[in-house]
């Protein structure tokens, strides 16, 4: 706008000059003003920035807090280590046993298949049909079926009794628990075979089957002689027992634990009639 066309604003040539010089700035201010005043143009500009920040936060949140969470979990495990291991031990044992059992089963099946294919199969059939050996064997074994007479859950090292059950009068269960533990550590120390543990003690007409867990072990006094298969079967029963009844905090002074174990040991190991009925049936 030429200066000469506005004579009435003569006193304001400065304003005019300002208008001319600052027009682009004024236009920009109006534009910005519009953006700030109206929601949509504002959102268009701000939202991407917030979104970017958010995704950055999301991406780095785990990193920043993982350490803290890790420490917390670590501490928890450290503080209740025994408890955790006691809970994991039987589960791991069962897994390993299942795996081995499955491997054995596969082996057996493959052997059987081979037998099936061979002429030996016919021979075997004839042999078993004739009765004889196997049946006699069965009769003999039935007469002396192994029975669990006493069952103990004992704290490692201290040898303190955590729980027990028996079908007969016993000298003193606490003493037996202590002596068993002493004998056990003697064997481990005397033969120093790494992590090998004492698993079976034979005494008079008894076999004492021992299965170790982390802070305690299970000992079953069995009358009669067990076959390897029966020992395996009993081990399985022990693992089931431990998994079901001992997945809790274990303290030697816990009277309710003693009661619970006394009752459940009887149910698991002493109610059932001869242990090997099942084993024998499995073989047939």
């Amino acid at each position, binding site marked *: 706008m030429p200066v000469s066309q506005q004579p009435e604003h003569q006193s304001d040539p400065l304003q005019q000059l300002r208008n001319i010089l600052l027009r682009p700035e004024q236009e920009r201010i109006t534009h910005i003003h519009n953006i700030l005043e109206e929601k949509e143009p504002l959102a268009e500009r701000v939202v991407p920035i917030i979104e970017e920040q958010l995704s950055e936060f999301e991406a780095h949140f785990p990193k920043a807090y993982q350490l803290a969470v890790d420490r917390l979990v670590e501490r928890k495990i450290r503080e209740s280590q025994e408890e955790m291991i006691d809970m994991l031990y039987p589960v791991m044992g069962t897994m390993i046993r299942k795996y081995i059992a499955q491997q054995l089963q596969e082996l057996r099946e493959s052997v059987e298949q081979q037998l099936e294919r061979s002429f030996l199969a016919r021979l075997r059939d004839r042999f078993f049909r004739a009765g004889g050996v196997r049946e006699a064997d069965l009769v003999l074994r039935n007469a002396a079926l192994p029975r669990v007479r006493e069952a103990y859950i004992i*704290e*490692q*090292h*201290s*040898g*303190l*009794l955590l729980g027990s059950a028996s079908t007969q009068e016993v*000298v*003193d269960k*606490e*003493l037996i628990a*202590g*002596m068993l*533990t*002493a*004998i056990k*550590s*003697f064997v*481990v*120390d005397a033969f120093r075979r790494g992590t090998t543990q004492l698993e079976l003690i034979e005494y008079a007409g008894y076999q004492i089957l021992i299965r170790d867990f982390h802070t305690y072990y299970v000992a079953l006094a069995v009358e009669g002689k067990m076959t390897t298969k029966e020992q395996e079967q009993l081990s399985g029963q022990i693992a089931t027992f431990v998994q079901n009844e001992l997945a809790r905090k274990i303290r*030697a*002074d816990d*009277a309710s634990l003693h009661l619970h174990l006394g009752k459940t040991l009887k149910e698991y190991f002493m109610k059932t009639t001869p242990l090997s009925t099942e084993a024998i049936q499995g073989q047939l």
Partner: protein
Amino acid sequence: MTSRKVLITGSFAVGKTSLFHRFVYNTFSDQYLTTIGVKVDKRVVDVSGEPLSLILWDIAGEVSQKKVPKTYFLGASAVIYVFDLSRKQTADNLKSDLKLIQKILPGCLIKVVGNKKDLVSEEELIILERTHNPDFLTSAKTGENVETLFMEIASELVSY
């Protein structure tokens, strides 16, 4: 019932087995001691109206000889360390043995006992007490202080 493992140790022939014999009713034959190096006994005592079962482990051999496996010590709530008042050399390893026990069983109750009190004179006793600072002076032969020793351990274990 609450139970605690209590172990007795010290040099050969200081009277460990005799001290236990004084205190417990013997269940198992001492044959076990020579064959497996350890024997377990038990006595139930009364501590302020509550029964406490003391499971006592007697071991053959000595701590310092490294003959006694660490496993025997594990899980013990109290250790009785015995030396023979009539044979000074049985206290020679006292300090290092106690250190070893404390290392194996941190926080465990340890009682040092000078046994065979009946064999030494009052004058000798005073000197021995000053040098070795035992917690108890006993005689497994006369029975002097034996009951006191175990009862004190029992009550300390309850309040431990």
